[in-house]
């Protein structure tokens, strides 16, 4: 992802809420200051499929907007 961002291709990190800080810190350690982390509900691993779909619906606009953002 860092390689893509560095070459001007926008990316989005998707993680569940408790991992947002870890994702942001690791992203910053690679030299990226702009937050590109999209949070979804936790815990995704044991969530029933219909709730996973709801989380996806909630997050999709933020993801699209990051991936279509200009350089």
């Amino acid at each position, binding site marked *: 992802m860092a390689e893509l961002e560095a070459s001007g291709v926008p990316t989005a990190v998707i993680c569940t809420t*408790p*991992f947002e*800080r*870890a994702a942001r*810190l*690791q992203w*910053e*350690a*690679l030299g990226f200051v702009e937050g590109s982390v999209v949070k979804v509900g936790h815990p995704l691993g044991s969530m029933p499929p219909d709730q996973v779909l709801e989380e996806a619906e909630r997050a999709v606009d933020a993801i699209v907007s990051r991936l279509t953002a200009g350089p």
Partner: protein
Amino acid sequence: MASLDGLHVVDLYRNVAGPPAATLLGKIGAEVVEVERPPLGDDARFADKPGARWPPGGAARADRGAGGRVARRGGERLSVPTLADDLWEVNRHFQRLGWSDGLPIVPPTRERVARLLAGSGRQATDVLGRMPPMWGELSLERIAANAVMAGCRPEDMPVVLAAVEALLDDRFNLHGVQCTTHVTGPLLVVNGPVRGRLGLNGANNCFGQGSPANATIGRAVRLVMVNIGGARPGDIDRATFGHPGKYTYCIAENEEDSPWPPFHVEAGFDPGESTVTAFAAEAPHNVNNHTYDPYRLLDAIAGTIATPGANNFYVMGDYTVVLGVDHARILDQAGWKRRHVQRYLFERARLPVPALRSGGMYPDQVERNLWPRWIERGDPDATVPPVREPEDLKIFVAGGAGPHSLVIPGWGTRAVTRSIVATGGAA
């Protein structure tokens, strides 16, 4: 002529706002004297950039900057070291900054770091690479500072360096090991002549307390992972529980009491060579078995391995078995070699696919598991081994007398063995 020429400024401010303001005044001509708290100076010394917060080498920086008073002239910092070697104050400071495993550290003074560097036989500015997940630079000086903090001696340095190099091998997947919720940490197993020279324990209570080299080498590697790699618990190290081996997890193989060639020799290294093997490991689990029959003994070990909570049954990777010396002797007397043990456990330490379908990690989605192609997911009689190939079961012999062996599940990645480079007769 700068606008504040001739003006004297005394800066008594702490942390965020003070240092930049005083630096600015210095840049436009003032003579600034900043007074900092002993023994390590202002907090801003360790927080001036994101990577410096969990000392990418912070320990060494703290040593250099150990001053009760720092003056700036014309925007430059001049350090006036007046280190008060107050163990409690130093530890309080390090712990507050997260440069700690929770236990007291040995303050990494310039002199101590230099002595450990001498033990490494390498230059302070040599770099082994960068360590994930925060990508701190692994300079020899920074690694030595962490080894001092752990209590290492100069002669321990070659083992610490070889272990760090093993962790950096892609097969180990250090980034994942550092960040996972899983209960894993690097188990280090040392082979070869260096064990005797350093007093590394592979016999009684080798996983327990009481062996300085085991305790400090494993601890040094952990401190490097936290302080240079940046895996601070709760922030980046997202372990749900962690385990006690995350303080230190280092043993020797008991080559002297093993009936078989040492692990590293069977892996292709020279008997006169010393090696360290790093394995992403859960805590050990005991197998207490009093039989003299090799089949029954290995069935007990196989049954202990075959548990649905272990990662191996879903993502494979390597798995470690530590045979006690008494158990190894029973096997040897019946003619068994290491490879026979691997083969038997590969066949017997299995879980049926239906059992994993009802009580596995992804119960009704076994197709998510990273099993080899030859396991037929829909066959009710199919069974799943913990590893893809028999040789992925890593067998060591260790411990003292007693009817015990240990099984140590992995995280799903590979064990990596590195040669310990001899310096000054240390390896």
